[in-house]
């Protein structure tokens, strides 16, 4: 072992985690969080393109009110494949498992996650689940949507639902293990001096996300497992014909799947805090409010599942309560947006590629969030639920926010991950093309939804007037596709012959930029890390919240003391 290491060191004077070892086994059996993050990055990108192909076919089909090339059955399978692949195999693992895995240990000054082997296991579970879902697609697909409502999924559909559900079950455990690892890492692995309120907001956001993964995912796992039991062993739990309640499935499904929406968007919010601060050269305005708003979103996220069920025979009283709590979620979300805006105010804003993505996020998240209020209101929801309004709303949040935050994160940490710079012109252009294509695709869908076009319909020959909006949307999707393909080319080019990245290409604060090389060495830091300053400690005369710092340092000490007991 040590002999190999010495030779490698001599051949490459700058030894880092990428060139520490070149065998395939050293990648597939690695316990290095950075290598696992790279493995995740490759696999989520692969599934993103699979899901995009399905989306492309759905959009193509909808350009005609009569249907174009798919049968109704194939159409159902196509939007189910799009939903399942994008949500469970791209959005859920994208930022936490690919980006968070890489940066979180470095940001808190740790050598690795608390359980490196569990981390690898979680990637393998993801790959097994991904293999199963591809197997299910190859074996004819599944047609119950990503929500798998009973009794359609349990009693009526004879497509490959069982395999798909088992795949999601396994992917769920991959997600649980990532969350568990992050929680323990944040609690126990922080470097000396890295107190809770010195942690970058990316870490706070991912900590909140991990709580959601840990508390929510098992519930959906058992729910989907019960449907598998019904399909395979005949043990009917949600079967109405023996007195079971199919609506209970919806309750249990959304008990996880609403928090899952925040699993997708919270890490993105963490990324945006990093980007905006780094490219405005100012500390995040109201750091503590942004940190606590992550936890507030996580907590409130568990109390609003019923807003997916306003028309599912749920009790009206409960509907009113869910409606009110759903409005409350807007408060912590708005706190974040205002604070990001104030961070830029009077800052030295540089429009580098990640910052362009971050600003695109702000606009799209604003629209996504505000249209959510229409759906939170009990009676407008009755009109809008199950229409393209909802489709547009959640795409603004999931694609417009999460995916764009993911791309922003990839562009921000790319020099750190691979030690290479990419072409700034193409990067900025891709962000602009994606922003334009995205709005072109999904804004017409708000109008379609308002006009009453139901989601998941194959034909709409009864209302040909909708065609023009659908054609617009599909044209937008083509632009969006070009936008998404551009990074694939110029990032590959950067890997092959990009300029060598300096340690801190953006002049940003944070341990990963100030203390770790680009790319970092195997155990991240060449010398022990001691943290002596708060996060985002940019030189700035008018730092906001200065008076509070002392009190919060005191609070930090108290927390440390409590944990130690």
């Amino acid at each position, binding site marked *: 072992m040590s002999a190999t290491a010495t030779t490698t060191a001599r051949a490459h004077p700058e030894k880092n985690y990428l060139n520490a070892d070149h065998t395939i086994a050293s990648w597939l059996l690695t316990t290095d969080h950075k290598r696992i993050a790279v493995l995740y990055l490759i696999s989520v990108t692969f599934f993103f393109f699979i899901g995009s192909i399905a989306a492309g076919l759905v959009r193509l089909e909808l350009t005609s009110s009569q249907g174009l090339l798919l049968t109704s059955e194939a159409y159902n399978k196509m939007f189910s494949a799009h939903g399942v692949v994008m949500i469970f195999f791209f959005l859920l693992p994208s930022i936490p498992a690919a980006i968070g895995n890489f940066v979180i240990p470095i940001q808190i000054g740790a050598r690795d996650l608390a359980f490196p082997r569990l981390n690898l296991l979680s990637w393998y579970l993801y790959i097994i689940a991904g293999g199963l879902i591809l197997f299910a697609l190859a074996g004819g697909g599944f047609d119950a949507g990503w929500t798998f409502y009973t009794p359609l999924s349990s009693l009526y559909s004879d497509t490959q639902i069982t395999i798909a559900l088992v795949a999601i079950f396994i992917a769920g455990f991959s997600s649980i293990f990532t969350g568990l690892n992050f929680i323990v890492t944040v609690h126990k692995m922080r470097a000396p001096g890295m107190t809770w309120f010195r942690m970058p907001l990316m870490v706070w956001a991912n900590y909140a996300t991990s709580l959601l993964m840990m*508390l929510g995912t098992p519930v959906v796992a058992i729910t989907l497992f019960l449907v598998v039991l019904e399909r395979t062993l005949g043990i009917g739990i949600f079967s109405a014909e023996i007195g079971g309640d199919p609506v209970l499935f919806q309750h249990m499904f959304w008990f996880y799947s609403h928090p899952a929406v925040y699993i997708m968007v919270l890490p993105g919010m963490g990324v945006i805090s990093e980007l905006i601060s780094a490219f405005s050269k100012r500390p995040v305005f109201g750091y503590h409010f942004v940190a606590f708003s992550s936890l507030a979103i996580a907590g409130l996220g568990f109390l609003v599942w019923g807003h997916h069920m306003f028309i599912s025979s749920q009790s009206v*009283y409960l509907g009113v309560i869910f409606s009110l709590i759903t409005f409350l979620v807007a408060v912590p979300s708005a706190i974040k947006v205002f604070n990001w805006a104030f961070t830029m105010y009077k800052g030295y804003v540089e429009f580098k590629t990640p910052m362009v993505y971050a600003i695109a996020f702000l606009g799209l998240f604003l629209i996504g969030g505000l249209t959510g209020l229409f759906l939170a209101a009990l009676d407008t929801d009755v009109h809008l639920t199950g229409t393209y309004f909802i489709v547009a709303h959640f795409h603004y949040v999931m694609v417009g926010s999460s995916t764009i935050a993911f791309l922003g994160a990839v562009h921000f940490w790319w020099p750190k991950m691979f030690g290479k710079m990419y072409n700034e012109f193409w990067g900025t252009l891709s962000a602009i093309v994606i922003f334009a294509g995205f709005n072109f695709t999904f804004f017409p869908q708000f109008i379609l939804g308002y006009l009453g076009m139901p989601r998941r319909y194959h034909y709409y020959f009864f209302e040909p007037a909708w065609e023009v909006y659908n054609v617009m949307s599909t044209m937008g999707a083509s632009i969006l596709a070009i936008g998404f393909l551009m990074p694939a080319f110029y990032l590959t080019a950067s890997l092959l012959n990009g300029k060598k990245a300096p340690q801190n290409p953006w002049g940003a604060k944070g341990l990963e930029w100030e203390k770790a090389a680009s790319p970092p060495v195997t155990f991240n830091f060449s010398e022990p890390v001691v943290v002596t300053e708060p996060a985002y400690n940019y030189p700035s005369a008018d730092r906001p919240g200065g008076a509070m710092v002392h009190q919060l340092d005191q609070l930090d000490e108290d927390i440390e003391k*409590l944990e130690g007991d």
Partner: protein
Amino acid sequence: MAKQFEEHGHHVIPTRTLAINLAWLMALMVLTIVAARVTHFLPTMPGNVVAMSIAIVKAFLVVAIFMGVKYTTNLAKLFAIGGFVWFLLLFGILIDYFSRPWEPVKGWEPLPSTSLPRTPGVDE
């Protein structure tokens, strides 16, 4: 090494404590069987309450003594309590089934069909 980490506050639970705990658990088990099956003297609701109270006490004994939560760090206590709280939160789903029979909500009944279509001025 063993001695060293005892000094760090890792509590070694005496065998006697463990044995007493086991005795309590066994006694409670016998009690719950007797209450439910042998005597049949309890009606439905008290029967449920007694059975569940005994189960909760047993669970508490296992968590506190056998799992050592009584002697462990605050963080582990927080996780143990947090798990329990979220378990209860899940049962919030039952509120739906509980409140459905209260409908229709007073004052929210659909208008009688004779009053339709509405004519301007009449509603004000």
